[in-house]
Protein backbone atom coordinates (compact mmCIF):
# COMPACT_ATOMS: atom_id res chain seq x y z
CA UNK A 1 0.00 0.00 0.00
CA UNK A 2 2.58 2.52 1.18
CA UNK A 3 4.84 1.34 -1.61
CA UNK A 4 2.31 1.88 -4.31
CA UNK A 5 1.47 5.38 -3.18
CA UNK A 6 5.12 6.36 -2.98
CA UNK A 7 5.88 4.84 -6.35
CA UNK A 8 3.74 7.46 -8.00
CA UNK A 9 5.54 10.08 -6.03
CA UNK A 10 9.08 8.99 -6.85
CA UNK A 11 8.74 8.79 -10.63
CA UNK A 12 6.37 11.58 -11.60
CA UNK A 13 7.32 11.47 -15.17
CA UNK A 14 8.70 8.09 -16.25
CA UNK A 15 9.20 9.05 -19.84
CA UNK A 16 12.83 8.05 -20.20
CA UNK A 17 13.32 4.35 -20.95
CA UNK A 18 15.85 3.69 -18.17
CA UNK A 19 13.43 4.78 -15.50
CA UNK A 20 10.55 3.06 -17.21
CA UNK A 21 12.56 -0.18 -17.22
CA UNK A 22 13.26 0.10 -13.49
CA UNK A 23 16.96 0.09 -14.42
CA UNK A 24 20.08 1.55 -12.88
CA UNK A 25 20.09 5.17 -14.05
CA UNK A 26 23.12 7.31 -13.10
CA UNK A 27 21.43 10.42 -14.48
CA UNK A 28 18.36 9.91 -12.41
CA UNK A 29 20.51 9.26 -9.29
CA UNK A 30 22.52 12.42 -9.86
CA UNK A 31 19.35 14.52 -10.18
CA UNK A 32 17.50 12.92 -7.30
CA UNK A 33 20.27 12.36 -4.79
CA UNK A 34 19.06 15.07 -2.42
CA UNK A 35 15.89 13.12 -1.68
CA UNK A 36 18.11 10.56 0.17
CA UNK A 37 19.87 13.05 2.42
CA UNK A 38 17.15 13.48 5.04
CA UNK A 39 16.30 9.76 5.28
CA UNK A 40 20.02 9.05 5.60
CA UNK A 41 20.47 11.37 8.56
CA UNK A 42 17.28 10.07 10.11
CA UNK A 43 18.82 6.60 9.79
CA UNK A 44 22.05 7.79 11.42
CA UNK A 45 20.02 9.34 14.20
CA UNK A 46 18.03 6.16 14.86
CA UNK A 47 21.14 3.98 14.83
CA UNK A 48 23.35 6.15 17.01
CA UNK A 49 20.67 6.99 19.57
CA UNK A 50 19.55 3.34 19.80
CA UNK A 51 23.17 2.22 20.23
CA UNK A 52 23.85 4.85 22.87
CA UNK A 53 20.76 4.06 24.92
CA UNK A 54 21.19 0.32 24.41
CA UNK A 55 24.82 0.53 25.48
CA UNK A 56 24.05 2.51 28.63
CA UNK A 57 21.30 0.11 29.70
CA UNK A 58 23.14 -3.13 28.95
CA UNK A 59 26.49 -1.91 30.26
CA UNK A 60 24.80 -0.89 33.49
CA UNK A 61 23.01 -4.22 33.73
CA UNK A 62 26.25 -6.10 33.10
CA UNK A 63 28.12 -4.13 35.78
CA UNK A 64 25.36 -4.84 38.29
CA UNK A 65 25.08 -8.52 37.33
CA UNK A 66 28.87 -8.93 37.43
CA UNK A 67 28.88 -8.50 41.21
CA UNK A 68 25.43 -10.03 41.78
CA UNK A 69 25.76 -13.19 39.80
CA UNK A 70 22.21 -14.35 40.45
CA UNK A 71 21.01 -11.56 38.14
CA UNK A 72 22.81 -12.98 35.10
CA UNK A 73 20.20 -15.62 34.28
CA UNK A 74 17.08 -13.46 34.53
CA UNK A 75 18.72 -10.61 32.58
CA UNK A 76 19.92 -13.01 29.89
CA UNK A 77 16.46 -14.53 29.61
CA UNK A 78 14.59 -11.24 29.37
CA UNK A 79 17.03 -9.67 26.89
CA UNK A 80 17.05 -12.99 25.04
CA UNK A 81 13.28 -12.86 24.58
CA UNK A 82 13.53 -9.25 23.38
CA UNK A 83 16.22 -10.35 20.96
CA UNK A 84 14.08 -13.08 19.43
CA UNK A 85 10.93 -11.01 18.89
CA UNK A 86 10.89 -10.24 15.17
CA UNK A 87 11.50 -6.53 14.92
CA UNK A 88 8.54 -5.91 12.60
CA UNK A 89 6.33 -7.59 15.17
CA UNK A 90 7.87 -5.41 17.85
CA UNK A 91 7.08 -2.25 15.86
CA UNK A 92 3.46 -3.25 15.42
CA UNK A 93 3.10 -4.42 19.04
CA UNK A 94 4.38 -1.08 20.27
CA UNK A 95 2.31 1.10 17.93
CA UNK A 96 -0.86 1.08 20.06
CA UNK A 97 1.16 1.99 23.17
CA UNK A 98 3.73 4.49 22.00
CA UNK A 99 2.22 5.55 18.71
CA UNK A 100 3.97 6.24 15.42
CA UNK A 101 7.39 7.88 15.51
CA UNK A 102 10.93 7.75 16.79
CA UNK A 103 10.02 6.52 20.27
CA UNK A 104 8.49 3.31 19.03
CA UNK A 105 11.35 2.67 16.62
CA UNK A 106 13.99 3.38 19.25
CA UNK A 107 12.38 1.11 21.84
CA UNK A 108 12.42 -1.77 19.40
CA UNK A 109 15.97 -1.09 18.22
CA UNK A 110 17.30 -0.68 21.76
CA UNK A 111 15.67 -3.87 22.98
CA UNK A 112 17.36 -5.70 20.14
CA UNK A 113 20.97 -4.76 21.10
CA UNK A 114 20.63 -5.34 24.83
CA UNK A 115 21.52 -9.03 24.77
CA UNK A 116 24.51 -8.58 22.47
CA UNK A 117 26.16 -5.85 24.51
CA UNK A 118 25.18 -7.31 27.90
CA UNK A 119 26.78 -10.64 27.07
CA UNK A 120 29.94 -9.10 25.67
CA UNK A 121 30.49 -6.78 28.63
CA UNK A 122 29.99 -9.67 31.02
CA UNK A 123 32.30 -11.96 29.08
CA UNK A 124 34.93 -9.24 29.00
CA UNK A 125 34.72 -8.74 32.75
CA UNK A 126 34.74 -12.48 33.43
CA UNK A 127 37.84 -12.91 31.28
CA UNK A 128 39.94 -10.64 33.48
CA UNK A 129 42.65 -12.98 34.83
CA UNK A 130 42.11 -14.02 38.44
CA UNK A 131 45.67 -13.15 39.39
CA UNK A 132 45.23 -9.61 38.08
CA UNK A 133 42.14 -9.21 40.23
CA UNK A 134 43.89 -10.80 43.22
CA UNK A 135 46.94 -8.56 42.86
CA UNK A 136 44.74 -5.47 42.60
CA UNK A 137 42.74 -6.35 45.66
CA UNK A 138 45.89 -7.35 47.53
CA UNK A 139 47.41 -3.94 46.89
CA UNK A 140 44.43 -2.21 48.39
CA UNK A 141 42.14 -1.32 45.50
CA UNK A 142 38.54 -1.16 46.63
CA UNK A 143 35.95 -3.10 44.63
CA UNK A 144 34.97 0.06 42.82
CA UNK A 145 38.55 1.05 42.03
CA UNK A 146 39.23 -2.47 40.82
CA UNK A 147 36.20 -2.31 38.54
CA UNK A 148 36.91 1.03 36.91
CA UNK A 149 40.70 0.96 36.86
CA UNK A 150 41.33 -2.68 36.06
CA UNK A 151 38.35 -4.81 35.13
CA UNK A 152 36.49 -2.47 32.76
CA UNK A 153 39.66 -1.38 30.90
CA UNK A 154 40.66 -5.03 30.45
CA UNK A 155 37.16 -5.87 29.21
CA UNK A 156 37.29 -3.13 26.55
CA UNK A 157 38.25 -5.39 23.62
CA UNK A 158 35.16 -7.57 24.20
CA UNK A 159 32.96 -4.57 24.95
CA UNK A 160 33.98 -2.88 21.71
CA UNK A 161 33.52 -6.13 19.78
CA UNK A 162 29.95 -6.29 21.10
CA UNK A 163 29.38 -2.71 20.11
CA UNK A 164 30.52 -3.45 16.57
CA UNK A 165 28.10 -6.36 16.17
CA UNK A 166 25.34 -4.25 17.69
CA UNK A 167 25.99 -1.29 15.39
CA UNK A 168 25.91 -3.37 12.21
CA UNK A 169 22.75 -5.12 13.34
CA UNK A 170 21.09 -1.83 14.24
CA UNK A 171 21.83 -0.21 10.88
CA UNK A 172 20.12 -3.17 9.23
CA UNK A 173 17.14 -3.22 11.56
CA UNK A 174 16.64 0.53 11.29
CA UNK A 175 15.67 -0.01 7.65
CA UNK A 176 12.41 -1.39 9.06
CA UNK A 177 11.84 1.58 11.36
CA UNK A 178 9.49 3.20 8.85
CA UNK A 179 6.90 0.60 9.85
CA UNK A 180 6.82 2.49 13.11
CA UNK A 181 6.65 5.75 11.25
CA UNK A 182 10.22 6.73 12.05
CA UNK A 183 11.46 7.10 8.47
CA UNK A 184 15.02 6.26 7.61
CA UNK A 185 16.55 4.70 4.52
CA UNK A 186 14.05 1.83 4.70
CA UNK A 187 11.26 4.18 3.80
CA UNK A 188 13.17 5.15 0.68
CA UNK A 189 13.87 1.55 -0.26
CA UNK A 190 10.26 0.49 0.09
CA UNK A 191 8.97 3.64 -1.56
CA UNK A 192 9.84 1.99 -4.87
CA UNK A 193 11.32 -1.41 -4.34
CA UNK A 194 11.03 -2.29 -8.01
CA UNK A 195 13.21 0.60 -9.14
CA UNK A 196 16.85 -0.50 -9.16
CA UNK A 197 18.30 2.99 -8.98
CA UNK A 198 16.33 3.71 -5.85
CA UNK A 199 17.12 0.42 -4.10
CA UNK A 200 20.82 0.61 -4.97
CA UNK A 201 21.25 4.14 -3.65
CA UNK A 202 19.19 3.72 -0.45
CA UNK A 203 20.56 0.23 0.23
CA UNK A 204 24.08 1.33 -0.60
CA UNK A 205 23.85 4.21 1.85
CA UNK A 206 22.76 1.78 4.58
CA UNK A 207 25.71 -0.51 3.85
CA UNK A 208 28.03 2.51 3.79
CA UNK A 209 26.69 3.69 7.13
CA UNK A 210 27.23 0.24 8.66
CA UNK A 211 30.79 0.12 7.35
CA UNK A 212 31.64 3.64 8.53
CA UNK A 213 30.24 3.03 12.03
CA UNK A 214 32.11 -0.24 12.25
CA UNK A 215 35.32 1.49 11.20
CA UNK A 216 34.81 4.29 13.71
CA UNK A 217 34.30 1.85 16.56
CA UNK A 218 37.34 -0.11 15.44
CA UNK A 219 39.46 3.05 15.47
CA UNK A 220 38.09 3.93 18.91
CA UNK A 221 38.92 0.44 20.12
CA UNK A 222 42.51 0.74 18.95
CA UNK A 223 42.80 4.09 20.68
CA UNK A 224 41.52 2.84 24.03
CA UNK A 225 43.32 -0.51 24.04
CA UNK A 226 46.92 0.27 23.04
CA UNK A 227 48.26 -2.59 25.17
CA UNK A 228 46.62 -5.23 23.00
CA UNK A 229 49.03 -4.39 20.19
CA UNK A 230 52.10 -4.46 22.41
CA UNK A 231 54.01 -7.49 21.20
CA UNK A 232 56.81 -9.27 22.98
CA UNK A 233 60.02 -7.35 22.50
CA UNK A 234 62.24 -10.37 22.96
Amino acid at each position, binding site marked *: MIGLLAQLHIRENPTQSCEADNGFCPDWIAHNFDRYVDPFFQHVYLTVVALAIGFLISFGLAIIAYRRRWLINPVTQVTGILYTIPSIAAFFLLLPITGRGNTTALIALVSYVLLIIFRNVLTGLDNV*PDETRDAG*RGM*GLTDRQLLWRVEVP*LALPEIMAGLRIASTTTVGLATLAFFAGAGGLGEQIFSDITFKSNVVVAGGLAVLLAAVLDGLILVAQRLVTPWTRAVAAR
Partner: protein
Amino acid sequence: MSALDSAHTTGPSSRPDAATLAFRSATKRYPGQAEPAVDGLSLEVPAGEICVLVGPSGCGKTTAMRMVNRMIDITAGDILLDGRSVKERRPAELRREIGYAIQQIGLFPHMSVADNIATVPRLLGWHKSRIRARVDELLDLVGLDRETRARYPAQLSGGQRQRVGVARALAVDPPLMLMDEPFGAIDPINRERLQNEFLRLQREIRKTIVFVTHDIDEAIKMGDRIAIMQQGGKLAQYAPPAELLMFPNGRFVEDFVGADRALKRLALQRVRDVDLWKAPLVRVGEPVAEARAKATDSEVPYPLLVDDDGRPLGWLSERGLVGERVQHELRSSAEPVLETDDILRDALSDLLQEEAQYGPVVDGRGQVVGVLSIEMLAHVLRTDPDQVPSGADAAA
Protein backbone atom coordinates in the same frame (compact mmCIF):
# COMPACT_ATOMS: atom_id res chain seq x y z
CA MET B 1 73.88 -5.69 39.62
CA SER B 2 75.74 -2.66 40.86
CA ALA B 3 72.42 -0.81 40.94
CA LEU B 4 71.30 -3.15 43.70
CA ASP B 5 74.30 -2.38 45.81
CA SER B 6 73.80 1.35 46.01
CA ALA B 7 71.98 2.35 49.15
CA HIS B 8 68.58 3.94 49.00
CA THR B 9 68.14 5.10 52.53
CA THR B 10 66.89 8.49 51.39
CA GLY B 11 64.46 9.18 48.61
CA PRO B 12 60.78 9.62 47.87
CA SER B 13 59.78 6.58 49.91
CA SER B 14 57.49 6.93 52.89
CA ARG B 15 58.06 4.57 55.83
CA PRO B 16 61.48 3.00 55.97
CA ASP B 17 60.82 0.99 59.13
CA ALA B 18 60.04 -2.70 59.29
CA ALA B 19 57.10 -3.99 61.26
CA THR B 20 56.80 -6.81 63.76
CA LEU B 21 54.19 -9.42 62.99
CA ALA B 22 52.53 -11.77 65.43
CA PHE B 23 50.06 -14.58 64.82
CA ARG B 24 48.05 -15.25 68.00
CA SER B 25 46.20 -18.57 67.75
CA ALA B 26 45.05 -17.41 64.32
CA THR B 27 42.46 -19.82 62.97
CA LYS B 28 40.57 -20.05 59.70
CA ARG B 29 37.63 -22.37 59.47
CA TYR B 30 35.52 -22.66 56.33
CA PRO B 31 31.86 -23.50 56.82
CA GLY B 32 31.09 -27.10 55.94
CA GLN B 33 34.66 -28.28 56.37
CA ALA B 34 35.60 -30.52 59.26
CA GLU B 35 39.24 -29.49 59.48
CA PRO B 36 40.24 -25.84 59.85
CA ALA B 37 42.40 -24.46 57.02
CA VAL B 38 44.66 -22.84 59.61
CA ASP B 39 44.53 -24.16 63.16
CA GLY B 40 45.60 -21.94 66.04
CA LEU B 41 48.73 -20.61 64.39
CA SER B 42 50.95 -18.73 66.82
CA LEU B 43 54.30 -17.29 65.83
CA GLU B 44 56.19 -14.02 65.94
CA VAL B 45 58.23 -12.51 63.16
CA PRO B 46 60.79 -9.96 64.39
CA ALA B 47 61.14 -6.74 62.41
CA GLY B 48 63.34 -7.04 59.34
CA GLU B 49 63.34 -10.83 59.13
CA ILE B 50 62.12 -13.23 56.47
CA CYS B 51 59.68 -15.78 57.82
CA VAL B 52 59.09 -18.62 55.37
CA LEU B 53 55.84 -20.55 55.59
CA VAL B 54 56.52 -23.93 54.02
CA GLY B 55 54.66 -27.20 53.80
CA PRO B 56 52.90 -29.61 51.46
CA SER B 57 49.97 -28.34 49.42
CA GLY B 58 46.83 -27.97 51.49
CA CYS B 59 48.73 -27.22 54.69
CA GLY B 60 47.24 -23.74 54.94
CA LYS B 61 50.43 -21.76 54.34
CA THR B 62 48.89 -19.48 51.71
CA THR B 63 45.73 -19.09 53.78
CA ALA B 64 47.88 -18.07 56.75
CA MET B 65 49.66 -15.47 54.65
CA ARG B 66 46.44 -14.09 53.19
CA MET B 67 44.95 -13.62 56.64
CA VAL B 68 47.63 -11.03 57.37
CA ASN B 69 46.28 -8.49 54.87
CA ARG B 70 42.72 -9.69 55.30
CA MET B 71 42.39 -11.18 51.83
CA ILE B 72 40.98 -13.96 53.99
CA ASP B 73 39.31 -13.06 57.26
CA ILE B 74 40.30 -14.74 60.50
CA THR B 75 37.70 -16.98 62.15
CA ALA B 76 39.30 -16.97 65.61
CA GLY B 77 42.45 -15.66 67.21
CA ASP B 78 44.25 -12.56 65.98
CA ILE B 79 47.10 -11.21 63.92
CA LEU B 80 48.99 -8.20 65.20
CA LEU B 81 50.93 -5.83 62.99
CA ASP B 82 53.22 -3.71 65.17
CA GLY B 83 51.05 -4.74 68.09
CA ARG B 84 47.81 -3.64 66.45
CA SER B 85 45.13 -6.11 65.41
CA VAL B 86 44.55 -6.31 61.67
CA LYS B 87 40.87 -6.89 62.44
CA GLU B 88 40.53 -3.24 63.53
CA ARG B 89 41.74 -2.02 60.15
CA ARG B 90 39.75 -1.31 57.00
CA PRO B 91 40.96 -4.01 54.55
CA ALA B 92 41.79 -1.70 51.63
CA GLU B 93 43.76 0.68 53.87
CA LEU B 94 45.60 -2.15 55.58
CA ARG B 95 46.59 -3.69 52.25
CA ARG B 96 48.09 -0.45 50.98
CA GLU B 97 50.57 -0.64 53.86
CA ILE B 98 51.56 -4.23 53.08
CA GLY B 99 53.56 -5.18 50.00
CA TYR B 100 51.91 -8.00 48.04
CA ALA B 101 53.61 -10.23 45.49
CA ILE B 102 52.17 -13.47 44.14
CA GLN B 103 53.46 -16.28 41.96
CA GLN B 104 51.44 -15.30 38.91
CA ILE B 105 52.63 -11.71 39.56
CA GLY B 106 49.30 -10.30 38.39
CA LEU B 107 50.68 -7.26 36.62
CA PHE B 108 47.98 -5.12 35.04
CA PRO B 109 48.30 -5.95 31.32
CA HIS B 110 46.76 -2.63 30.24
CA MET B 111 49.20 -0.49 32.19
CA SER B 112 52.82 0.34 31.48
CA VAL B 113 55.54 -0.81 33.84
CA ALA B 114 55.63 2.66 35.42
CA ASP B 115 51.86 2.73 35.93
CA ASN B 116 51.92 -0.75 37.42
CA ILE B 117 54.59 0.25 39.92
CA ALA B 118 52.71 3.47 40.69
CA THR B 119 49.51 1.66 41.66
CA VAL B 120 49.70 2.07 45.43
CA PRO B 121 51.38 5.51 45.41
CA ARG B 122 48.41 6.70 43.29
CA LEU B 123 45.92 5.17 45.71
CA LEU B 124 47.67 7.09 48.48
CA GLY B 125 47.48 10.29 46.45
CA TRP B 126 51.19 10.89 46.02
CA HIS B 127 52.23 13.88 43.94
CA LYS B 128 53.14 13.13 40.31
CA SER B 129 56.76 14.16 40.59
CA ARG B 130 57.24 12.05 43.71
CA ILE B 131 55.73 9.03 41.94
CA ARG B 132 58.03 9.56 38.97
CA ALA B 133 61.11 9.73 41.12
CA ARG B 134 60.03 6.71 43.13
CA VAL B 135 59.43 4.62 39.99
CA ASP B 136 62.93 5.41 38.73
CA GLU B 137 64.36 4.58 42.13
CA LEU B 138 62.55 1.24 42.21
CA LEU B 139 63.57 0.31 38.67
CA ASP B 140 67.20 0.86 39.72
CA LEU B 141 66.65 -1.06 42.92
CA VAL B 142 65.36 -4.21 41.21
CA GLY B 143 67.89 -3.95 38.40
CA LEU B 144 65.62 -2.93 35.53
CA ASP B 145 66.51 -0.49 32.80
CA ARG B 146 64.70 2.82 33.12
CA GLU B 147 63.66 2.41 29.49
CA THR B 148 61.34 -0.39 30.52
CA ARG B 149 59.08 2.09 32.32
CA ALA B 150 56.98 2.67 29.18
CA ARG B 151 56.67 -1.00 28.22
CA TYR B 152 53.62 -3.14 28.72
CA PRO B 153 53.90 -6.39 30.71
CA ALA B 154 53.41 -8.40 27.50
CA GLN B 155 56.68 -6.95 26.25
CA LEU B 156 58.73 -8.21 29.18
CA SER B 157 60.50 -11.50 29.86
CA GLY B 158 59.39 -13.64 32.79
CA GLY B 159 62.28 -12.46 34.94
CA GLN B 160 61.60 -8.81 34.14
CA ARG B 161 57.94 -9.23 35.01
CA GLN B 162 58.95 -10.75 38.31
CA ARG B 163 61.14 -7.75 39.06
CA VAL B 164 58.33 -5.35 38.20
CA GLY B 165 56.11 -7.33 40.58
CA VAL B 166 58.63 -6.91 43.37
CA ALA B 167 59.12 -3.21 42.56
CA ARG B 168 55.34 -2.72 42.63
CA ALA B 169 55.10 -4.46 46.00
CA LEU B 170 57.86 -2.22 47.36
CA ALA B 171 56.42 0.98 45.90
CA VAL B 172 55.46 2.76 49.11
CA ASP B 173 58.26 1.15 51.10
CA PRO B 174 55.84 -0.98 53.13
CA PRO B 175 57.02 -2.16 56.56
CA LEU B 176 55.76 -5.67 55.75
CA MET B 177 55.78 -7.73 52.55
CA LEU B 178 53.75 -10.80 51.72
CA MET B 179 55.22 -13.00 49.00
CA ASP B 180 53.42 -16.11 47.78
CA GLU B 181 55.82 -18.33 45.80
CA PRO B 182 57.22 -15.23 44.09
CA PHE B 183 59.82 -17.24 42.18
CA GLY B 184 57.62 -20.28 41.59
CA ALA B 185 56.99 -19.69 37.90
CA ILE B 186 60.60 -18.95 36.96
CA ASP B 187 63.01 -21.48 35.43
CA PRO B 188 65.59 -22.90 37.89
CA ILE B 189 68.57 -20.91 36.64
CA ASN B 190 66.85 -17.56 36.72
CA ARG B 191 65.15 -18.48 39.96
CA GLU B 192 68.52 -18.97 41.64
CA ARG B 193 69.64 -15.58 40.37
CA LEU B 194 66.45 -13.82 41.45
CA GLN B 195 66.66 -15.42 44.89
CA ASN B 196 70.22 -14.18 45.33
CA GLU B 197 69.28 -10.74 44.10
CA PHE B 198 66.34 -10.63 46.41
CA LEU B 199 68.44 -11.60 49.42
CA ARG B 200 70.92 -8.88 48.49
CA LEU B 201 68.03 -6.44 48.19
CA GLN B 202 66.67 -7.53 51.54
CA ARG B 203 70.03 -6.91 53.20
CA GLU B 204 69.57 -3.33 52.08
CA ILE B 205 65.88 -2.70 52.70
CA ARG B 206 65.44 -4.92 55.78
CA LYS B 207 61.71 -5.51 55.44
CA THR B 208 59.70 -7.89 57.50
CA ILE B 209 58.68 -10.55 54.99
CA VAL B 210 56.26 -13.43 55.04
CA PHE B 211 57.36 -15.76 52.26
CA VAL B 212 55.29 -18.76 51.20
CA THR B 213 56.80 -21.70 49.33
CA HIS B 214 56.35 -25.47 49.00
CA ASP B 215 60.07 -25.92 48.31
CA ILE B 216 62.09 -26.71 51.44
CA ASP B 217 65.35 -25.83 49.67
CA GLU B 218 64.03 -22.38 48.86
CA ALA B 219 62.82 -22.06 52.45
CA ILE B 220 66.25 -22.90 53.83
CA LYS B 221 67.90 -20.49 51.47
CA MET B 222 65.56 -17.54 51.95
CA GLY B 223 64.38 -17.84 55.54
CA ASP B 224 65.71 -16.26 58.70
CA ARG B 225 63.05 -18.39 60.31
CA ILE B 226 61.04 -21.22 58.84
CA ALA B 227 57.55 -22.28 59.86
CA ILE B 228 56.87 -25.81 58.66
CA MET B 229 53.15 -26.43 58.42
CA GLN B 230 51.33 -29.71 58.00
CA GLN B 231 47.92 -30.92 56.89
CA GLY B 232 45.10 -29.42 58.90
CA GLY B 233 46.78 -26.03 59.13
CA LYS B 234 48.95 -26.93 62.10
CA LEU B 235 52.38 -25.53 62.78
CA ALA B 236 54.89 -28.39 63.01
CA GLN B 237 58.01 -26.42 63.85
CA TYR B 238 59.12 -22.80 63.82
CA ALA B 239 62.85 -22.27 63.97
CA PRO B 240 65.86 -20.83 62.16
CA PRO B 241 66.94 -23.07 59.26
CA ALA B 242 70.07 -24.46 60.92
CA GLU B 243 68.12 -25.50 63.98
CA LEU B 244 65.46 -27.09 61.80
CA LEU B 245 68.07 -29.10 59.91
CA MET B 246 69.88 -30.25 63.02
CA PHE B 247 67.04 -30.70 65.47
CA PRO B 248 63.82 -31.53 63.66
CA ASN B 249 61.19 -31.93 66.37
CA GLY B 250 59.40 -34.93 64.95
CA ARG B 251 58.88 -37.39 62.14
CA PHE B 252 56.92 -34.97 59.97
CA VAL B 253 59.60 -32.28 59.95
CA GLU B 254 62.32 -34.89 59.55
CA ASP B 255 60.59 -36.36 56.51
CA PHE B 256 59.72 -33.00 55.04
CA VAL B 257 63.24 -31.65 55.40
CA GLY B 258 64.48 -34.88 53.82
CA ALA B 259 67.15 -37.49 54.42
CA ASP B 260 69.81 -35.25 52.87
CA ARG B 261 69.75 -32.82 55.78
CA ALA B 262 73.53 -32.70 55.95
CA LEU B 263 73.71 -31.76 52.29
CA LYS B 264 71.01 -29.13 52.77
CA ARG B 265 73.19 -27.40 55.32
CA LEU B 266 75.25 -26.28 52.34
CA ALA B 267 72.40 -23.86 51.67
CA LEU B 268 73.17 -22.05 54.90
CA GLN B 269 76.57 -20.83 53.83
CA ARG B 270 77.77 -18.77 50.95
CA VAL B 271 80.94 -19.04 48.94
CA ARG B 272 82.28 -15.94 50.65
CA ASP B 273 81.91 -17.62 54.07
CA VAL B 274 84.56 -20.18 53.12
CA ASP B 275 88.35 -19.67 53.18
CA LEU B 276 88.95 -19.85 49.45
CA TRP B 277 92.11 -21.12 47.83
CA LYS B 278 94.33 -18.47 46.37
CA ALA B 279 94.08 -18.53 42.59
CA PRO B 280 97.34 -18.67 40.58
CA LEU B 281 96.45 -15.80 38.25
CA VAL B 282 98.38 -15.25 35.06
CA ARG B 283 97.92 -12.87 32.17
CA VAL B 284 98.57 -13.20 28.45
CA GLY B 285 102.23 -12.63 27.63
CA GLU B 286 103.59 -13.76 31.00
CA PRO B 287 106.55 -16.16 30.78
CA VAL B 288 105.36 -19.77 30.92
CA ALA B 289 108.00 -20.64 33.53
CA GLU B 290 106.57 -18.00 35.87
CA ALA B 291 103.05 -19.33 35.34
CA ARG B 292 104.22 -22.83 36.23
CA ALA B 293 105.87 -21.52 39.38
CA LYS B 294 102.67 -19.78 40.47
CA ALA B 295 100.68 -22.99 40.03
CA THR B 296 103.22 -24.97 42.02
CA ASP B 297 102.94 -22.51 44.89
CA SER B 298 99.16 -22.82 45.03
CA GLU B 299 96.72 -25.56 45.97
CA VAL B 300 95.35 -25.47 42.45
CA PRO B 301 97.40 -27.54 39.96
CA TYR B 302 96.94 -25.19 37.02
CA PRO B 303 97.27 -21.43 36.49
CA LEU B 304 94.12 -19.43 35.74
CA LEU B 305 94.28 -17.03 32.81
CA VAL B 306 92.55 -13.70 33.50
CA ASP B 307 92.00 -10.60 31.39
CA ASP B 308 93.33 -7.11 32.21
CA ASP B 309 90.39 -6.49 34.56
CA GLY B 310 91.02 -9.72 36.46
CA ARG B 311 88.07 -11.59 34.96
CA PRO B 312 88.56 -15.31 34.37
CA LEU B 313 89.30 -16.46 30.80
CA GLY B 314 90.21 -20.11 31.33
CA TRP B 315 92.51 -22.67 32.90
CA LEU B 316 95.94 -23.38 31.42
CA SER B 317 96.40 -27.13 31.49
CA GLU B 318 99.72 -28.86 30.73
CA ARG B 319 98.83 -28.68 27.06
CA GLY B 320 98.38 -24.91 27.37
CA LEU B 321 101.75 -24.30 29.02
CA VAL B 322 103.95 -24.57 25.94
CA GLY B 323 106.34 -22.11 24.31
CA GLU B 324 107.90 -19.03 25.87
CA ARG B 325 104.91 -16.90 26.76
CA VAL B 326 101.39 -17.61 27.89
CA GLN B 327 99.03 -17.55 24.93
CA HIS B 328 95.37 -16.71 24.86
CA GLU B 329 94.34 -19.47 22.50
CA LEU B 330 95.65 -22.35 24.59
CA ARG B 331 93.31 -21.97 27.57
CA SER B 332 90.48 -24.35 28.38
CA SER B 333 87.11 -23.25 29.75
CA ALA B 334 86.92 -21.48 33.12
CA GLU B 335 83.44 -22.87 33.78
CA PRO B 336 81.87 -23.04 36.23
CA VAL B 337 82.50 -19.47 37.37
CA LEU B 338 81.12 -19.13 40.89
CA GLU B 339 80.09 -15.96 42.68
CA THR B 340 80.87 -14.96 46.23
CA ASP B 341 77.13 -14.57 46.84
CA ASP B 342 76.25 -18.11 45.69
CA ILE B 343 75.14 -20.47 48.42
CA LEU B 344 77.40 -23.51 48.74
CA ARG B 345 74.65 -25.86 47.59
CA ASP B 346 74.30 -24.05 44.27
CA ALA B 347 78.08 -23.86 43.90
CA LEU B 348 78.35 -27.60 44.45
CA SER B 349 75.68 -28.34 41.88
CA ASP B 350 77.42 -26.03 39.39
CA LEU B 351 80.70 -27.86 39.92
CA LEU B 352 79.07 -31.27 39.51
CA GLN B 353 77.26 -30.05 36.42
CA GLU B 354 80.54 -29.09 34.76
CA GLU B 355 82.30 -32.19 36.14
CA ALA B 356 84.92 -29.85 37.57
CA GLN B 357 87.05 -30.31 40.69
CA TYR B 358 87.27 -26.58 41.30
CA GLY B 359 86.00 -23.33 39.91
CA PRO B 360 87.13 -19.70 39.99
CA VAL B 361 85.15 -17.44 42.33
CA VAL B 362 84.40 -13.90 41.23
CA ASP B 363 83.11 -10.90 43.15
CA GLY B 364 80.31 -8.55 42.12
CA ARG B 365 82.51 -6.90 39.49
CA GLY B 366 83.52 -10.22 37.97
CA GLN B 367 87.08 -10.21 39.31
CA VAL B 368 88.60 -13.48 40.48
CA VAL B 369 88.97 -13.53 44.26
CA GLY B 370 89.84 -17.20 44.76
CA VAL B 371 89.04 -20.79 43.92
CA LEU B 372 86.44 -23.11 45.41
CA SER B 373 86.90 -26.88 45.21
CA ILE B 374 84.87 -30.01 45.84
CA GLU B 375 87.46 -30.87 48.48
CA MET B 376 86.59 -27.72 50.46
CA LEU B 377 82.87 -28.46 50.25
CA ALA B 378 83.49 -31.97 51.56
CA HIS B 379 85.34 -30.39 54.46
CA VAL B 380 82.41 -28.09 55.20
CA LEU B 381 80.09 -31.10 55.28
CA ARG B 382 82.34 -32.88 57.78
CA THR B 383 82.58 -29.96 60.21
CA ASP B 384 80.67 -29.91 63.46
CA PRO B 385 77.05 -28.97 62.74
CA ASP B 386 77.00 -26.66 65.77
CA GLN B 387 79.36 -24.36 63.96
CA VAL B 388 77.03 -23.91 61.03
CA PRO B 389 75.65 -20.40 61.10
CA SER B 390 71.91 -19.76 60.86
CA GLY B 391 70.37 -18.47 57.67
CA ALA B 392 70.13 -15.03 59.23
CA ASP B 393 73.87 -14.93 59.80
CA ALA B 394 74.57 -16.25 56.35
CA ALA B 395 72.46 -13.54 54.78
CA ALA B 396 74.00 -10.75 56.85
